[in-house]
């Protein structure tokens, strides 16, 4: 059963990995992905970001994505933590922790969760730039990244 958290507060990568490893010796691989707020977007400097989400649906969408990953790979643990609210460049946005007996499943599952999250979890980014604040456009590359798992 995956750990899903949607929160305004920051998270601690080390603490989350420790929680996955605690009390067990059967895990062979832990892969983590951390997404950060960049200081550039659309060719412009970004001074701040606001992350909006759809409470209720967000948690359901992340749980669904995690369940698909767990059905697809032999995972021993899977954590997905995503922040919302006011963020600054350098801040952490999202964390995925995937644990498996072998590395390939852990790498693939973490990658799959991120690709699906990008197109299926109801989050929207608004960046503050010197020209004012603007909503970030969805990227076609993200649709393509999701599609590759459907053909796989």
């Amino acid at each position, binding site marked *: 059963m995956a750990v899903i958290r949607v929160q305004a507060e920051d998270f601690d990568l080390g603490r989350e990995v420790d929680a996955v490893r605690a009390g067990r010796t059967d895990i062979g691989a832990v892969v983590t992905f951390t997404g950060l707020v960049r200081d550039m977007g659309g060719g412009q400097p970004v001074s701040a970001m606001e992350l909006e989400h759809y409470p209720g649906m967000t948690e359901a969408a992340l749980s669904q994505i995690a369940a698909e990953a767990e059905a697809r790979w032999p995972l021993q643990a899977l954590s997905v933590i995503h922040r919302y609210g006011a963020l600054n460049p350098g801040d952490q946005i999202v964390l995925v922790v995937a644990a498996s007996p072998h590395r390939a499943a852990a790498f693939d599952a973490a990658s799959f969760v991120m690709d699906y999250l990008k197109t299926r979890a*109801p989050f929207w980014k608004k960046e503050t730039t010197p020209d004012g604040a603007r909503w970030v456009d969805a990227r076609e590359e993200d649709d393509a990244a999701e599609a590759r798992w459907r053909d796989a």
Partner: protein
Amino acid sequence: MKVLYFAWMRERIGLPSENVETSAGTVRALVAELAAREERYAAAFADMRAVRVALDQKMSDLDAPLDGVREVAFFPPMTGG
């Protein structure tokens, strides 16, 4: 039913959510009703290629029926992660 708007749709319409009395049978019919209300609604629904819809918190589409649906949400393509 409850209708929610997110991101630039929320800003364009000026509301995060509202209760809507409608007899619209599909999402498409509801969109037509809303867009006919006022300019701010027309602007939000002007380009439906940029609008996504969820029914009771599950992704859906314009032709989906609204029978029994309690919550409809409109929003642009997602940009999380």
